[in-house]
């Protein structure tokens, strides 16, 4: 199967313009259409090592980031489309790359319900995975990027997908979204980070995405075993520490961070129960990334080789 980097810049741009770029992302196939040049550039940088899907394969999500009509061109606006329909407002085309990535998240958040989905970053070492749920701003993406740059395999910075009544996780590796100061934090953490286009003045501020598939097995689709759930919280001026968290509290917080816990009803409850009963839960308060990465490396029963 071909990798996306096999396509020349010109071929990639043409395929995108014709809406014929299909690629495999975790268990899904996305088909993307776009006539914006920096969308092609961003995809070329961040998705170079993703597998292209065969033309005859079933497509899960048909999406587009398109500038159409004279008015949109004059105003410098673009639109995200899903099944040829736009679920959101038009956006300034300078923010289109970030919105494409968010749109790709949105497809999974809203339209996939075969797994219990937690709003969480997830990383793995060998067969052992850690889930890191957190509200926006808790620093889960930053920590996820730092772990990825320190030898961990990034499974997702957004969706932890748990097959029902298992303690497993399905990898869904995509670029990590970094905002504002966390961009510089990661740049100074490692010079190996590869970034896509910058989107300024979005509702979340300045946004850049970091290439996340840094390991040889980044695109394996095999499920991995969840060993721990860590709730990170970025806080300056508080003592940095890892402390065990009660399972009952962890259940409630994880359910709160789930996209489809209540939608799955009893199955959601059973799935969450199975997960929380079988993995150790921790709170991690941090502001120094090196220390945070070291702490995660040292998690009991999970030593990274």
């Amino acid at each position: 199967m071909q990798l996306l980097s096999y396509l020349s810049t010109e071929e990639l741009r043409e395929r995108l313009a014709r809406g014929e770029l299909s690629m495999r992302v975790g268990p899904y196939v996305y088909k993307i259409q776009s006539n914006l040049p920096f969308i092609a550039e961003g995809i070329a940088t961040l998705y170079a090592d993703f597998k292209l899907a065969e033309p005859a394969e079933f497509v899960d999500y048909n999406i587009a980031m398109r500038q159409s009509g004279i008015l949109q061109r004059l105003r410098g606006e673009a639109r995200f489309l899903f099944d040829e329909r736009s679920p959101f407002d038009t956006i300034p085309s300078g923010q289109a790359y970030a919105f494409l990535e968010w749109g790709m998240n949105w497809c999974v958040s809203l339209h996939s319900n075969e797994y219990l989905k937690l709003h969480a970053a997830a990383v793995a070492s060998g067969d052992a995975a850690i889930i890191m749920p957190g509200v926006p701003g808790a620093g889960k993406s930053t920590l996820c990027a730092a772990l990825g740059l320190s030898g961990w395999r990034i499974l997702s910075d957004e969706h932890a997908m748990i097959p029902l009544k298992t303690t497993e996780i399905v990898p869904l590796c995509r670029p990590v979204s970094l905002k504002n100061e966390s961009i510089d934090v990661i740049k100074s953490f490692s010079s190996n980070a590869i970034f896509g286009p910058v989107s300024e003045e979005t509702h979340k501020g300045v946004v850049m995405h970091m290439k996340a598939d840094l390991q040889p097995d980044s695109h394996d689709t095999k499920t991995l075993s969840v060993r721990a759930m860590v709730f990170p919280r970025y806080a300056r001026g508080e003592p940095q520490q890892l402390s065990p968290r009660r399972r009952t509290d962890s259940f409630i917080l994880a359910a709160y961070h789930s996209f489809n816990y209540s939608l799955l009803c009893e199955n959601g409850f059973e799935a969450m129960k199975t997960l929380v009963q079988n993995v150790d839960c921790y709170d991690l308060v941090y502001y120094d990334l090196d220390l945070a990465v070291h702490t995660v490396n040292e998690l009991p029963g999970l030593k990274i080789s």
Partner: protein
Amino acid sequence: MSFLLQRVMLNPQQCLDLDNIQLNQLLSQARSSKLLASLAFELENAGVRSHLDQSVDRHLQSAVLIHEKQKRDLAYDSEKIKLALDSIGEKLVLLKGAAYLLAELPMGKGRLITDIDIIVPQHRIDDSENALNKSGWKSGNVNAYDNRYYRKWGHEIPPLTNERRDTTLDVHHNILPPTVGPKVDAGLLFQNLIEIKSGVFTLSWQDMVIHSATHLFHEGEFHHGLRDLWDLDRMLRDFPRRIPRFWEELVSRAGELELQSSLFHGLNYAQQVFGTPIPDGIIDKIGNRSMSLRKPIMDFLFLRAFRPEDPRCKLPYTSFALYLLYVRSHYLRMPLYLLIPHLARKAWIRQLSTGKNSSEARGNDAI
């Protein structure tokens, strides 16, 4: 002229002959037409679903789960609304999707809803609003102009949102705004209510058909057009089995409510798009000469509206037809002396609002 979703909804076995590209097209058409869960039920009924590949079926299952969640939420919310209306001695009468779901009707199978629609007699609208306010259903962010507009010219009050559950409730006192040509005597609608469970009512079967058709043919936007037509088709296949003189009563009822024209279109397009079995002569009885004369133009417009938004199945001149239908809906909805200032104001507001707010201005066109 036919399109994939239409063919498979009517003949689910066809699904087994589709390749991956066609399956993708089918699901995409169904999802953007808000018919994905309905499609899942049709395929399930025909015993086809279990033959589909897991990677395809998971999308159907996801839509079914969303539908089931909405049904659970509706059961809870409708109990709360019933209690609120009980406190002022008013019955809960559900309309549209909420009625189809709770009454377990065929068009409720897989039906997705966005809000709960209810109707109360016009003279009880203030009391009802107060009672609902007290139980947590509050008016959202409606600007003064829209608020005045709703209350003076609308057939419903501004939508109420539940503070804790975030569900939306539309409280109607009629099925058409008072500014529209036919003045529907809403009192008639309360005559033949059907009690679907203790204290919860729907319109009579005939009124349900007429309301569905009326709603559809006074709409300005057709994002749910195909889905609404599917509702109509399922009703018209089911209701005649429930009541012996269904068709005759339907014709005379449309006359009483002065809504023949909407019903005429409704039956016409249900038959043209979904092959709804309608006894000979019924459509002629409802229509008149002017409706028949206008039919070719209406066919041109509506047969374009009742298609998925898939570029691969779009007919020529679709955007033009949709634009004319949008203009038509406004023209139907209000006399020109109201319409022109209203549209001018809307255009002005839209001009003022930048990208971020533009959908808000557009969303308000719903009224």
